[in-house]
């Protein structure tokens, strides 16, 4: 199902299809992305967490080549390294699982002997400790990556130990869709069996603002009838699938 299919279905359910309707597709799409990220994040966390091996969530993982920018002894970290910027937000998953792998790509400029090397996740603080340890220090066949926020607010992945000749890498990531670049005609990330939960969440989000014009849309804000009740969010069970994705497993 594409985002357009889902959003149009919600638009019809809300009655927002007449020629002067208040909401457009993008309004519903934004709510959809909010809630889809919630549910997809739950699902991936479950599969790559303590009880899963991550195999069942690989259909949501993207593998993309990224260009690498080499930095010569930057002021920020005082040693040579390279980096690439993530083009979109990555899910915050257990074991820093948003980035599932980084590898040398074919034709990336690395020596063939290190092609199979895997990049290990670490932090900038640990790198400082490892730098002078002979068995752990970053080198081309034992590269590391560490995420940080750049000074210009980019989601940056620092690469340590790689050759200065490397120009690109292959990265596997769990990207969250970006509202401002999403193509409405692409398939949704969410699994089909979670669509019902997603629709319920999106409709629930919509009920509240839809209630406001009828109940509070007056300049003085004192337009309530005596005894008038404002609709509130529905109370849900602690066992609801939207709170505990394990319950949706077959």
């Amino acid at each position, binding site marked *: 199902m594409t985002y*357009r299919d889902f959003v149009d279905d919600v638009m019809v359910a809300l009655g927002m299809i007449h020629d*002067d309707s208040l909401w*457009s597709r*993008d*309004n519903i799409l934004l709510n959809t992305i909010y809630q889809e990220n919630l549910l997809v994040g739950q699902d991936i966390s479950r599969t790559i967490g303590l009880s899963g091996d991550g195999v069942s969530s690989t259909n949501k993982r993207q593998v993309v080549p990224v260009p690498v920018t080499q930095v010569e002894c930057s002021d920020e970290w005082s040693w040579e390294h390279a980096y690439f910027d993530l083009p979109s937000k990555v899910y915050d998953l257990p074991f820093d699982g948003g980035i599932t792998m980084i590898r040398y790509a074919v034709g990336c400029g690395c020596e063939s002997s290190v092609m199979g090397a895997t990049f290990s996740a670490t932090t900038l603080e640990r790198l400082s400790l490892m730098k002078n340890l002979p068995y752990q220090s970053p080198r081309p066949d034992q590269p590391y990556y560490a995420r940080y926020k750049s000074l210009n607010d980019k989601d940056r992945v620092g690469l340590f130990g790689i050759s200065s000749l490397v120009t690109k890498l292959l990265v596997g990531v769990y990207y969250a869709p970006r509202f*401002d670049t999403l*193509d409405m005609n692409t398939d949704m990330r969410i699994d089909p069996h979670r669509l019902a939960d997603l629709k319920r969440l999106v409709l629930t989000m919509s009920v509240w603002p839809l209630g406001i014009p009828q109940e509070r849309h007056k300049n003085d804000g004192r337009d309530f009838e005596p005894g008038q009740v404002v609709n509130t969010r529905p109370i849900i069970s602690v066992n609801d699938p939207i709170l505990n994705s394990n319950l949706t497993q077959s």
Partner: protein
Amino acid sequence: MLARLDDQGSQRYLPEQDIIPSINSGIGRLQSAFGWSLANRKGSEEAMRDFTRIAIFQTSSNGTILLADPLLGQTMANVLAVYPLPLTEQAQTIQPINNSAYRSDLSFAGPTTPCHRVTLEQVPMIQSNASMRGNEVLALIPSRISWRYYLNQGSVWLLPRSQALRILAAIAYIQKFDPMTSTTSTVDIPEYTAEILASWALTYIAWKQDPQGQGVGNLASKDAAELFGFNVN
């Protein structure tokens, strides 16, 4: 209706002086009534089907369409809808001109995307707000572009402007009724409004018998007040 005495003192109603203007007043009032009903509830479009037209235009290099296009041959009384990037029966071409142009070589075959009307005051709020139709933020993504239009200085202005430059757009409009010019000319109005028009024309002409508003003038005033909600006196 027999005249007692009109305010010009001619002792009779004359076609150019009294009859034709009163009929034209009725025609103008019909046009206003339809415009009023469309503006308030967008109703009665079916009632105006005989005068609903759709024409294809090419927008100017500023993304506008001049409504009073001299080549159109008709005057637009009300804009019902604007359809950017419509389907046409003929192959579409863009002419290398800067002004908007009526494209008589193209005929409308169907709309492709909705385009909502917006007020002048709302236009600046839309531009950078990705959650509002017609914004520029998402204008470059084909599946996310959304359209709006507003009316300004006799032209339709399309949003997002960046995507509206020299494109084709169809306008559905209510044609303005042509006024009566002589006693032998045709009054081109919906057939079912003929009786209403005759009644209103008689009211207008009868008003001239009584310029102080003592008699039938009160009836006309009441009638207009009921229709439009304002006082004509």
